[in-house]
């Protein structure tokens, strides 16, 4: 044996009381170096740091045994004939460190100092919810108070270090740590297991490619839309089915909200400040949903965008509010594609080509038409690009009695409504209803925002 053994016990555990003579014997022999007792603060702290869940426990490095089993203890300690007269086996008891109520308090007491965020004491007479509004920390809806205990619990949702920098968040260009994301995730109402998705969304939003700074500052409607793929969507209970773009699912609602709170609080991006939206859209509170991969006739969005199947991912898109496409009659992909094209042409303005991308959220009943017709996503995109190649004479300023449009000089050619990589499809929604949705984009390409797909870490 190269390392000594430490023991952890608590007072009101009958098994701990039973094996006291055994521990005394092992201490005498020099096999056990120290006995931590959870009844005093030092013992409790030692137990907490050793992550003891059951007592009595014997710990040597990474190895540990819990409860009392003579044969196990003899093997672990290398001492034969332990606990003469004792029963062969007795189960242990729960450690005080995992007692409900106490566990959170201990996390703050022994680990709270690891948190770097400024502590803000609330005055005695302040209502907690009002206090957070008053400080300008909310999006207009109430938030959950980010206490140390809640933030520590949130941080349990990731294996990343609290002080790790996730992104530099515009517009103030502040280095945002995992901890700051966790604080805002608590406020948004996230559960700890959502945190990896929020972290990926924040990281993706703050890339040069996505350009959250420009998206925030624009007078246009758009905000970040978060689409989640892979096993994590189901693992954390996200909605990709009935009312997928709507209210009522905690993960959908709070992940998108947490991202926006990070932009607001850490980045300093606030409506009326750097956010100059003329009208905005309700999705700027939160706009996050999962793709229904199982029911889809196509490969998942994240796979089409280059990740391996089975990898959890977020895709961020600078989107406005969804507009509906109703088609209850088409039974062939050729016909249904024409309905899609008609609505897609209205993105931004029917007379403006190429400047705006779009995501099409294809519902199960519409997807069925494409499945039965044998259309792949690539085929659908190709057909739509063809249907949406418009004669310049229809698009020029003044055409159709409308002054908006492309310059007269460009009127001689035909123009595609979308760039070849500006049209994307995702499968979601309830199984009843021949309705799909189009989420129009913002200025696309290098001068605006490009969709970003990023793997969700642990």
């Amino acid at each position, binding site marked *: 044996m190269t390392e000594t053994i430490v023991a952890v016990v608590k007072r009101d555990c009958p098994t701990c009381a039973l094996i006291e003579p055994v521990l005394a014997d092992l201490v005498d022999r020099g096999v056990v170096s120290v006995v931590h007792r959870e009844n005093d603060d030092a013992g409790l702290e030692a137990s907490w740091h050793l992550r003891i869940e059951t007592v009595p426990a014997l710990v040597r490095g990474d190895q540990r045994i819990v409860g009392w089993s003579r044969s196990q203890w003899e093997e672990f300690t290398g001492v034969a004939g332990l606990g003469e007269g004792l029963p062969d086996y007795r189960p242990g008891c729960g450690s005080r460190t995992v007692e409900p109520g106490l566990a*959170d*308090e201990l996390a*703050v*007491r022994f680990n709270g100092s690891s*948190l770097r*965020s*400024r*502590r*803000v*004491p*609330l005055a*005695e*007479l302040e209502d*907690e919810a009002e206090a*957070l509004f*008053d*400080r300008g*920390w909310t999006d207009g809806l109430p938030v959950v*108070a*980010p*206490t*140390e*205990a809640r*933030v520590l619990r949130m941080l349990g949702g990731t294996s990343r270090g609290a002080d790790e920098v996730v992104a530099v*968040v515009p517009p*103030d260009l*502040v280095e*945002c740590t995992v*901890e*700051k994301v966790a*604080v*805002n995730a608590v*406020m948004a109402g996230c559960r700890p297991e959502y945190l990896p998705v929020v972290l990926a969304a924040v990281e993706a939003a703050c890339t040069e490619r996505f350009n959250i700074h420009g998206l925030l500052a624009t007078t246009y409607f758009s905000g970040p839309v978060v689409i989640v793929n892979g096993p994590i969507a189901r693992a954390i209970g996200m909605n990709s089915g009935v009312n997928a773009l709507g209210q009522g699912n905690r993960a959908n609602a709070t992940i998108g909200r947490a991202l926006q*709170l990070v932009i607001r*609080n*850490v*980045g*300093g991006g606030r409506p009326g400040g750097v956010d100059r939206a003329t009208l905005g859209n309700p999705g700027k509170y939160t706009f996050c949903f999962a793709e229904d991969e199982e029911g889809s006739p196509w490969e998942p969005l994240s796979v089409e965008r280059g990740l391996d199947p089975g990898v959890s991912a977020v895709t961020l898109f600078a989107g406005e509010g969804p507009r509906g496409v109703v088609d209850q009659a088409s039974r062939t992909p050729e016909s249904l594609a024409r309905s899609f094209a008609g609505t897609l042409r209205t993105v931004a303005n029917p007379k403006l080509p190429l400047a705006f991308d779009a995501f099409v959220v294809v519902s199960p009943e519409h997807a069925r038409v494409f499945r039965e017709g044998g259309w792949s996503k690539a085929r659908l995109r190709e057909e739509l690009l063809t249907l949406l190649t418009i004669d310049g004479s229809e698009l020029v300023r003044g055409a159709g009695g409308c002054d908006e449009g492309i310059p007269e000089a460009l009127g001689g050619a035909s123009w595609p409504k979308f760039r070849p990589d500006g049209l994307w499809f995702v499968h979601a929604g309830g199984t009843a209803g021949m309705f799909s949705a189009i989420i129009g984009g913002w200025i696309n390409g290098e001068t605006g925002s490009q969709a970003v797909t990023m793997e969700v870490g642990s």
Partner: protein
Amino acid sequence: MNARVVLDPTGERSPAVRQRVERPASLEGRTVGLLDISKARGDKFLDRLSQLREERGLRVARFRKPTFAKVAPVDLKHEISTTCDVVIEALAD
């Protein structure tokens, strides 16, 4: 553990303690609110202050809390904050 301590969710570029509104350099052209908290003879004190302000040509608005034993009602606070530039409160008897 103090449940009333929260962690700052911001980039921490401004002070955690909210700043007071700056003291005006002059009361010229401003409305002075006089708040009686309903303590005995607070009204006498404020009557005198009111007289002094008005002699200087300042606008004065009078307010009264229903009871000194409770914080001011929200409506009263709202009215004071939207109609006055400064407030003088008669706190004790």
